[in-house]
């Protein structure tokens, strides 16, 4: 089995029992499948605040099955691959009940990659191997210099970094006459210095390190020529905590309706739906508006329409929409409909919602095809608000 970031796919599954959080499994009684390409299939059964994970060929009975390749799966579980991106990009797929699968997120503690040791030799090899990729060509214009490193001790060695004509090269010797040479008695001190564990002044002062040649080149130019070395063992854990302030704003608002909208809203109280009719072009506006924006004239003639009509358009909303007035998330899916009221024509439609259990039955109409006939369902206590109509339902 292949390893990714030093972790095998089965390591993730084998550690599930140990990483299991019973508090995340409350009231869950379900089965999830994992289908990891070229690696195998696993079945996760959650019941009575316990889990069972087994490798199997039979994923039948799973409410949702996750599909991914080994690298992506390990990457997502170890934090090396962004889960949202992997999902959006189709590298992770979920067949079946997506919402149910989302609950697996709370079932387990994070998988932590066991820390591996890196020796001074490993670090030096990595530091000089990453010199060229870390080189910032934009900072090297016109520069012709060589930086030599003479690092002593049992793990030490010699290196030279050349920069000329915007190209950076590294040799594992010291050649020619370097612009500046950095000398460390013990290579381990150099590693600690680069990792930020020890500062240059105490090294110099302690006689553990020194430099020959153009010291200024090393002190001021080197740091801008190269991206900072990243400790492979440090992972992506930020060294500083970023303080983010969380705020919730709650506001009371009240809006005057004006006479035209006022008539519409008052009509709803009386179970009537009012439009107004443009004296010039004859179109109906629903809800009524003070003027016809096309003709730029006042529209004062109020006309009762509906209350029944025909569905011309429906949006089925699956996305968990927050209600802007309460912040509460609307139940999904719901159907937002545009109803062409009896007495209206063309685009004179009213947007509202359809009864939740009737979404599947709604047909959208156009010139040649009648849409589903619907009627409003009124609230018992009406206050002059668009929600005085609870929703529309099929008029059978």
């Amino acid at each position, binding site marked *: 089995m292949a390893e990714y970031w030093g972790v095998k796919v089965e390591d993730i599954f084998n550690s599930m029992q140990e990483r299991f959080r019973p508090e995340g499994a409350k009231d869950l009684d379900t089965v999830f499948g994992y289908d990891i390409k070229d690696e195998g299939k696993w079945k996760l059964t959650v019941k009575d605040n316990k889990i069972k994970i087994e490798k199997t060929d039979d994923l039948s009975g799973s409410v949702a099955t996750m599909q991914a390749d080994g690298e992506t799966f390990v990457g997502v579980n170890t934090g090396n691959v962004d889960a949202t991106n992997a999902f959006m990009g189709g590298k992770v797929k979920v067949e079946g009940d997506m919402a149910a699968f989302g609950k697996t997120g709370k079932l387990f503690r994070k998988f932590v990659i066991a820390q591996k040791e890196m020796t001074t030799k490993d670090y030096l090899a990595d530091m000089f191997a990453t010199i060229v990729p870390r080189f910032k060509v934009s900072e090297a214009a016109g520069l012709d210099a060589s930086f030599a490193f003479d690092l002593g001790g049992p793990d030490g060695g010699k290196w030279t970094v050349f920069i000329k004509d915007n190209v950076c090269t590294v040799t594992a010797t010291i050649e020619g006459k370097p612009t500046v040479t950095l000398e460390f008695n013990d290579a381990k001190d150099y590693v600690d210095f680069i990792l930020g564990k020890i500062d240059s002044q105490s090294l110099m002062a302690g006689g553990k390190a020194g430099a020959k040649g153009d010291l200024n080149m090393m002190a001021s130019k080197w740091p801008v020529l190269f991206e900072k070395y990243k400790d492979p063992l440090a992972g992506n854990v930020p060294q500083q905590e970023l303080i983010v302030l969380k705020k919730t*704003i709650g506001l009371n608002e009240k809006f005057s309706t004006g006479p035209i*909208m006022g008539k519409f809203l008052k009509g709803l109280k009386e179970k009537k739906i009012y439009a107004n009719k443009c004296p010039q072009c004859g179109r109906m506006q629903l809800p009524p508006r003070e003027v016809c924006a096309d003709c730029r004239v006042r529209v004062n003639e109020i006309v009762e329409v509906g209350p029944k009509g025909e569905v011309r358009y429906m949006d089925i909303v699956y996305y968990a*929409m927050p209600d802007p007035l309460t912040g509460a998330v609307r139940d999904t899916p719901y159907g937002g409909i545009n109803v062409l009221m009896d007495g209206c024509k063309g685009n004179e439609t009213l947007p*509202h919602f359809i009864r939740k259990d009737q979404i599947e039955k709604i047909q959208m109409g156009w010139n040649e095809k009648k849409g589903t006939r619907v009627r409003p369902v009124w609230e018992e206590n009406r206050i002059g608000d668009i929600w005085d109509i609870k929703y529309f339902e099929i008029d059978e």
Partner: protein
Amino acid sequence: MAHKKKNRNVGIIGIGQTKHSSHREDVNQPELIHEAISLALKDANLTMNDIDCVVHGNMELFEMVHQPDLWHVLGTGAYGKDCIRITTGGTVGATIACASDNLVASGMYDIVMAIGFEKLQEGHTTGGITNMADPLWFRKIQAGALTGSSAYDVEKEFGLERADRASLTYRIIMDKHAGLNPNAHRSFGLDFGQIDDLIRTSPRLVGNLKLIEMCSQSDGACCVIFACEKKAKDLAQTPVWIRDHITVHKEESFTIFGYDRKYPVLKTHKFAAEQLFKRNDIKNPLDYFDVFEMYDPASWWAIDWLRDFFALKGDEHLKLIEDKEIMIGGKMPINPSGGVIGSNPIGATALLRVAEAALQVRGNAGPHQIPTPVKHALASGFGGTMWTVMTMLEKELNW
């Protein structure tokens, strides 16, 4: 005939933008803005002392900071300068470009700096957008910026399979473009072989609008510096000239879906494009323009709008996509930057369209520079309640 009333010509002489990202908790708003401004000043080889006026734009409801321009002075450098704050909608970035153009053209200021910014992770985008609707009734019903109506329109006309494939083809082209743009927020490395898979597996948001087809929510800022003809010629090697811009909106078309052919709804993009090209005497925009930076909030809108912008007939717009003529190197490259689907810091988004189009005209956009010379570029902005802004950019002052 807006451009013919122009008192004097205006050129873009400086462009800066941040890397767009969903993870900019390392900086606050003024600091984020400052990054874009520093880059634009460096690009123009100017300092804040050279700037006569600052035009600031974002969507205040998203972060819920009133008068953000005051707090942002720490980052904008507008202290002691004339400063104008503008908020429209998704178009705000395009609107501040129009305003800057007008301010310079009028003769009031010689050099104006436009700053568009958003930190969408700091507020609630969908909640903010929902608040744009008429509070007396529609706010309670609408679903943010999401609708499946464009998908429905294209499906109804061309069949589900062709429509779905066109939308995903567009989406994957944008992903490939974003992959070339080092500032783009996201590129997933999608490939055309994944089309069927993504159609099947990407979760539905509204109707047939899928998660993969929708734009991102980004943190980012963009800064563009505008100068009068004389200063532009003095200061910049390759100023990019603003030829014309147009703004059209019709709020009520936002709520009406009657699907009655006898009563066509005014489409603001189509109307704006017709007016703009007519008054500039451009007979065939598809031939005239070399690149188009389009405000594409989702791939469904994008594929539908191509027909409106370029006055295309029948399925010509779908063919452009299917034949990949909208890719870098194609007949009409759309969004070499990766577009709004790639990065969407909303207050900066429409200004980024102008900025990226101008970079293409200058010829130094970077890895996503189109290989053929760009003389004429088009940029569009789009915002809630059917709001369109279009901007025409030119390499030469010869129209």
